């Protein structure tokens, strides 16, 4: 109980307390029946889209029928889940939960909140089918989760609009600027972006930095080993400011979330958008096949192609009640046919190399494109420290509105970096 009371006391508003109390209460209601009998399995899911939730529910019911284990799935809002997981992993953990691999997973592994599932890896021989994506769930040679769908970030456009206007996806920054002019004269926003939740601005930063400075320097920055006021940063922000000042991103993007930005692309009000395969949620079902994918344009000629490739994941919490059931379900859920059905709903790239070929054109475009990728980061707020990410996201959003404040913003980020990484 010590942990509970100190968690609650972290902030003194009553709302926070209610949140904590709610978490404890769910914990009790989730936990008690599990103590009574072990034929139970509880999953907390953060899946936002209905189609993918249905697939998970279907797999769970099939598993329930085959094994006799009662599976309970608790759906949470995707953003709210990011904060709730911190309390439920400590008090009232489910048997399985969805999360993000890489640095975000490591944060919980370090605090001993995720279970080591190397035994499952061994038993099911996952290493042979997973390839490099196994690395994203490995800490010190042990596996702490199973990688799920990979999201390859890049530029999306409408094939019919591009065909009608005779445009082609830009391969260089100059072509992007030229396309921007054409789009503006056609009355369209060149690049649709919604920075209300801030992270899309950071994604744009990732792409610019990966194209100009390459993966090693980018990762050094993410790990806090490189300064935000380093001279290598200057061309990134120079070029970015050029794009902002050319009116590439339209106005008032801080008022919109990515959903509205994607809708603008679907409604032919914008020419392109920087996102991953889930851009299709913004499109009506019958127009999804019009979505085209192109990698982010080249900036430094000849630089190897590095991309943001974010891997979601699923984990067994350390405090789970039914760890054996959880492993058993994972093995079932991770069968190629089940996994690929689950991932196709969000057009994510399957981590297993023995999944059946996808019928989804966006998945296939991403798989094809990945062949020429030399190395990958995950995403700004997944790669760097969460505290740093919060300041960084804010800074990049501000830069996209007020590019002339660059020096102030970078000074501030550098101050934050020094505080967090004790550099």
């Amino acid at each position, binding site marked *: 109980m010590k942990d509970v*009371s*100190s*968690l*609650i*006391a*972290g*902030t*003194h*508003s*009553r*709302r*926070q*307390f209610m949140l904590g109390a709610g978490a404890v209460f769910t914990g009790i209601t989730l936990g008690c029946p599990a103590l009574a009998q072990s034929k139970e399995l509880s999953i907390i899911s953060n899946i936002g889209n209905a189609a993918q939730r249905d697939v998970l529910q279907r797999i769970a019911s099939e598993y329930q029928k085959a094994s006799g284990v009662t599976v309970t799935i608790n759906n949470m809002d995707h953003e709210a889940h990011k*904060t709730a997981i*911190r309390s439920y992993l*400590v008090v009232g953990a489910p048997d399985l939960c969805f999360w993000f691999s890489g640095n975000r997973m490591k944060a919980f592994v*370090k*605090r001993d*909140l995720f279970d080591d599932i190397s035994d499952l890896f061994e038993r099911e021989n996952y290493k042979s089918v997973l390839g490099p994506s196994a690395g994203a769930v490995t800490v010190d040679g042990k596996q702490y989760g199973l990688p799920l769908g990979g999201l390859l970030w890049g530029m999306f456009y409408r094939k019919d609009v591009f065909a009608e206007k005779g445009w082609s996806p830009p391969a260089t920054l100059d072509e992007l600027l030229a396309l921007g002019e054409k789009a503006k004269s056609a009355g369209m926003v060149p690049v649709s972006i919604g*920075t*209300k*939740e*801030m992270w899309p601005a950071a994604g744009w930063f990732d792409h610019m930095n990966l194209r100009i400075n390459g993966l090693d320097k980018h990762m050094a920055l993410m790990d806090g080993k490189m300064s935000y006021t380093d001279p290598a940063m200057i061309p990134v922000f120079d070029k970015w400011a050029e794009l902002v000042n050319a009116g590439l991103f339209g*106005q*008032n*993007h*801080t*008022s919109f979330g990515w959903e509205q930005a994607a809708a603008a692309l679907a409604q032919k009000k914008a020419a392109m958008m920087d996102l991953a395969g889930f851009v299709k949620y913004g499109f009506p079902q019958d127009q999804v096949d019009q979505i085209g994918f192109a990698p982010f344009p080249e900036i430094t000629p000849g630089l190897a192609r590095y991309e943001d490739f974010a891997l979601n994941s699923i984990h067994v919490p350390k405090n789970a009640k039914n760890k054996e059931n959880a492993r058993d379900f994972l093995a079932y859920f991770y069968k190629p046919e089940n996994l690929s059905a689950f991932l196709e709903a969000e057009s994510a790239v399957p981590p297993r190399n023995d999944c059946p070929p996808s019928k989804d054109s966006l998945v296939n475009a991403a798989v094809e494109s990945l062949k020429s990728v030399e190395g990958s980061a995950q995403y700004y707020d997944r790669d760097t420290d*969460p*505290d740093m990410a*919060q*300041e960084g996201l*804010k*800074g990049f*959003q*501000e830069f996209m*509105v007020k590019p002339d404040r660059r020096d102030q913003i970078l000074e*501030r980020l550098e101050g934050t970096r020094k*505080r967090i990484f004790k550099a």
Partner: protein
Amino acid sequence: MSGFWRSHRAWMAPTLFILPGALLFGIVIIMASIQTIWVSFFDWDGVGAMQWVGLANYAQLFDDPQFYVSLRNNLIWLGLFMLAPPLGLALALLLNQPIRGMRVMKSLFFVPLVLASVTVGVVFTWVYDPSFGLLSLLFGYFGATAPALLSDEHFVTFAVVVAALWPQVAFCLVLFLAGLNNLSEDLIGAGRVDGARGWPMLWHVVLPQLREVSFIALAVTVIGALRSFDMVAVMTSGGPFGSSTVLAYQMYEQSIFSYRFGYGAAIATVLFVIMAAFIAWYLRTLLKPERESA
């Protein structure tokens, strides 16, 4: 047993009735507050080990430009929220007429009180939306382009406060309406006999009787302004780039998103001190006349 009860009833009954409330208040408010102040001296991520840092969190806080933005926004909230009691009083006087259909009017004015503040926030976000919002339609009618209020660092706090004022005015309206129902007919009659009408009547006869209600309205409004959080979270998440953040939201953001519970606790403590100062002043002014009349 019954003999024991009879001889001790005088103090046991009230104690038993107060105990649950006092216990809850002690744990949820007093203990939590003390623990918050304690946590503010530590570097703590909310899960792992706590590390004593003394006053370092406060030193950082007073160095943090975001803190001053939040503080300034809290002052804007406080200043604009002061409009709620007079507006509520004006509406109450207007609605307190024995006219047919006034009940319907009254209930229309109560509507924002029924809505959850999250709903009010979402509705106003739509009103302000630069592409399809009511505001942009209104501006478009006159051939102008509506400003994107929630995207502008100078307007955004005012836009959020206006949304929050709507239910707050309705709340003050309810308080004053209740107060107006309890006016002493004798005093008003006496005032009439002495020739008071209009302003003098309001100022010298009605308002003094609304003194207690006004104090409650003022206190609720000040506290509402200082603990403003939900509207900011729903409408802007503190953005764009932190320009609409208030202290309560900054505390939440630092604790939950940046995993800095010690720093968040330091912000909470500062907010607590500000509120405590106000409440001390409030209780003093409220209790003084009561003590004098006793």
